[in-house]
């Protein structure tokens, strides 16, 4: 055989072998497919994308015993606007402000939002939202060190809309209750974090969650009734037994209100304990005790802003101040009682630049003066601290200086001082005088703070403040 023929056959054979290998070899045979079911999760237990199991996950963190909150004489701030629902902390002895700058004891990062903390038994409770795992998370921290003690969370996918978290938990008889942005109510043991019961306002009451999510903070009566305002298809308000989550009473939603961002406020009007709720559609009063507990006593729909964040403020035994942002302004509601007959009348209403108003925070009534921060549509005094008297809602008796503008920041009265927090993270302290405030110091607490809208909480000389992504503990007392 010729040499060239031999080479030709050899080349053909080589190509044939290469072709056969190419066809027969499967380079993907060693690849692993990542498809659902690789974690041997039992059949039928797969999660739907929108399934919410309130409080299903729990994590406890190791904290050195020396850092764990111990038994002691702890003060408390147990809910929205504190125990007195007036946003005023009344200490037995006036606080002595720390000399020099207030030390910031700790700062924790949070999910983006405006939910504010409460304080109980040396612990801090915050309903956070963790974007990474798309979950509401009730987190418990040590007040002294800021170390996280436990968290209970549940998956609830949401889209960012001015952050996520909104509300302030409430604590009663060793139990902590939270309301999530999508209306999920969760009750846990405040000490251990054990899940006690849950309630989904959308599912149970057909609540339509408002744009910008649920802003309603839970209110618990001294008798241990959780008051909710689902303002759903059939139920306006509901009383829930804190012990087991069972429904004690409901108020039929005959007025067809919808849920607002406002919270239920307890008041005594005409000698009647009343739960006052400003919903989308109007404001109403529901009997809080007696044989008629849960009965709708009165309602008014003449003043009904489309967006409503501040809660009603009681001015007297028959007058309630209503306020809302986004152009709504303020209104004065007169509630009168004649025997079993109630009447509720809007005595006056005005735009934001015509008098006392507020966009997000609920004003404070302190020593006959109403303290507020005017909204951005409040004219030349916009975003400044202002004082009004209940008898004249149109003319401020005092306004803060031009550079003391607070945006949507919160404010709280501790003894005879007002602590106001700029939405950029700067704390201002004022002495409260008979008809004015006097600035005595200011301090940047959260560097480069932004959207600091969550209300403050105070206990044991420590003031908790937050911006959109942090919570800080400031030692204000010596």
């Amino acid at each position, binding site marked *: 055989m010729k040499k060239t023929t031999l080479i030709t056959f050899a080349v053909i054979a080589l190509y044939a072998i290469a072709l056969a290998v190419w066809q027969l070899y499967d380079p993907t045979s060693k690849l*692993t*497919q*990542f*498809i*659902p*079911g*690789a*974690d*041997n*999760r*039992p059949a039928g*237990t*797969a*999660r739907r*994308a929108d399934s919410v199991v309130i409080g*299903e*996950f*729990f*994590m406890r*963190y*190791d904290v050195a015993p020396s850092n764990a909150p111990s038994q002691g004489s702890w003060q408390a701030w147990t809910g929205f606007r504190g125990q007195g629902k007036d946003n005023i902390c009344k200490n037995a002895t006036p606080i002595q402000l720390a000399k020099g700058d207030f030390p910031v004891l700790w700062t924790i990062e949070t999910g983006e939002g405006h939910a504010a903390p409460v304080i109980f038994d040396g612990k801090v409770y915050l309903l956070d939202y*963790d*974007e*990474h*795992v*798309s*979950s509401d998370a009730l987190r418990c921290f040590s007040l002294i060190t800021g170390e996280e003690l436990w968290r209970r*969370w549940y*998956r609830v*996918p949401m889209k960012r809309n001015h952050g996520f978290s909104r509300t302030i938990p409430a604590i009663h008889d060793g139990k902590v209750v939270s309301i999530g942005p999508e209306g999920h109510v969760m009750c846990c043991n405040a000490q251990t974090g054990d899940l006690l019961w849950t309630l989904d306002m959308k599912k149970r009451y057909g609540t339509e969650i408002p744009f910008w999510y649920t802003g309603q903070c839970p209110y618990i009566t001294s008798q241990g009734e959780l008051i909710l305002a689902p303002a759903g298809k059939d139920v306006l308000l509901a009383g829930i037994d804190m012990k087991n989550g069972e429904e004690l009473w409901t108020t039929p939603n005959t007025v067809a209100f919808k849920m607002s961002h406002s919270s239920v406020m307890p008041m005594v009007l005409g000698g009647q304990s009343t739960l006052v709720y400003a919903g989308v559609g109007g404001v109403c009063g529901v009997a809080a005790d007696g044989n008629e507990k849960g009965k709708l006593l009165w309602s008014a729909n003449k003043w009904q802003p489309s967006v409503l964040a501040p809660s009603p403020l009681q001015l007297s035994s028959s007058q309630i101040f209503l306020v809302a942002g986004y152009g709504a302004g303020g209104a004065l509601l007169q509630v009168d009682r004649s025997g079993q007959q109630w009447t509720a009348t809007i005595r006056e209403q005005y735009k934001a630049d015509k008098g006392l108003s507020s966009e997000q925070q609920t004003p404070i009534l302190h020593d006959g003066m109403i303290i507020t921060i005017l909204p951005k549509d409040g004219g030349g005094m916009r975003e400044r601290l202002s004082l009004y008297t209940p008898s004249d809602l149109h003319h401020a008796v005092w306004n803060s200086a031009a550079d003391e503008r607070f945006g949507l920041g919160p404010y709280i009265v501790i003894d005879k001082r007002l602590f106001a927090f700029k939405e950029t993270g700067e704390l201002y302290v004022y002495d409260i005088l008979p008809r004015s405030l006097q600035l005595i110091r200011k301090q940047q607490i959260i560097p480069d703070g932004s959207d600091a809208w969550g209300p403050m909480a105070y206990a044991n000389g420590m003031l908790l403040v937050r911006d959109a992504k942090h919570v800080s503990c400031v030692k204000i007392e010596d």
Partner: protein
Amino acid sequence: MERRKFLATCGTLLAGGSLAAMGSVLAVKASRNEGDMMWQIDPEKCVQCGRCQTECVLPVSAVKCFHANQVCGYCDLCGGYYRANVKELNTAAENMMCPTGAIQRKFVEEPYFEYTIDEELCNGCGKCVKGCSSFGNGSLFLQIQQERCLGCNECKISKVCVSGAIQRVPVGTAYKLKEHA
């Protein structure tokens, strides 16, 4: 020199050199004393910047994810296992945080899962560690796998580590393991 002889000499040198180098590495590893120092990551300082994956001189980094079972919460909804904002909680590739599939899990009981790390697949990117630390209790953490580490005089990762987490440690305590969250 003849071409055949030249090629044979080159081949011999290459093979012999490789054997000698390998022998040297093994000898160095075998002769480590208690007083010798090794490179290791301090989990308390690590910020999971991702440079461990790309800066190690090895083709696949000697840095691996370790898992402290006694710290883990065995959560179904694990921030180190799932990517952010996943739509479904299942093991489809688009939901996985680990780009190489190194984190695996098995169902224990509702709602708990046991997590394990396939070291061969792990490239030390630290994405899972970041996810676990930001939400969970930090049971996932990065360590230099000493069996893989070449023990360079100057660890290339340590030169670029932004938090100074890579340090010399004695052989006797070659790992900084987590026992608490």
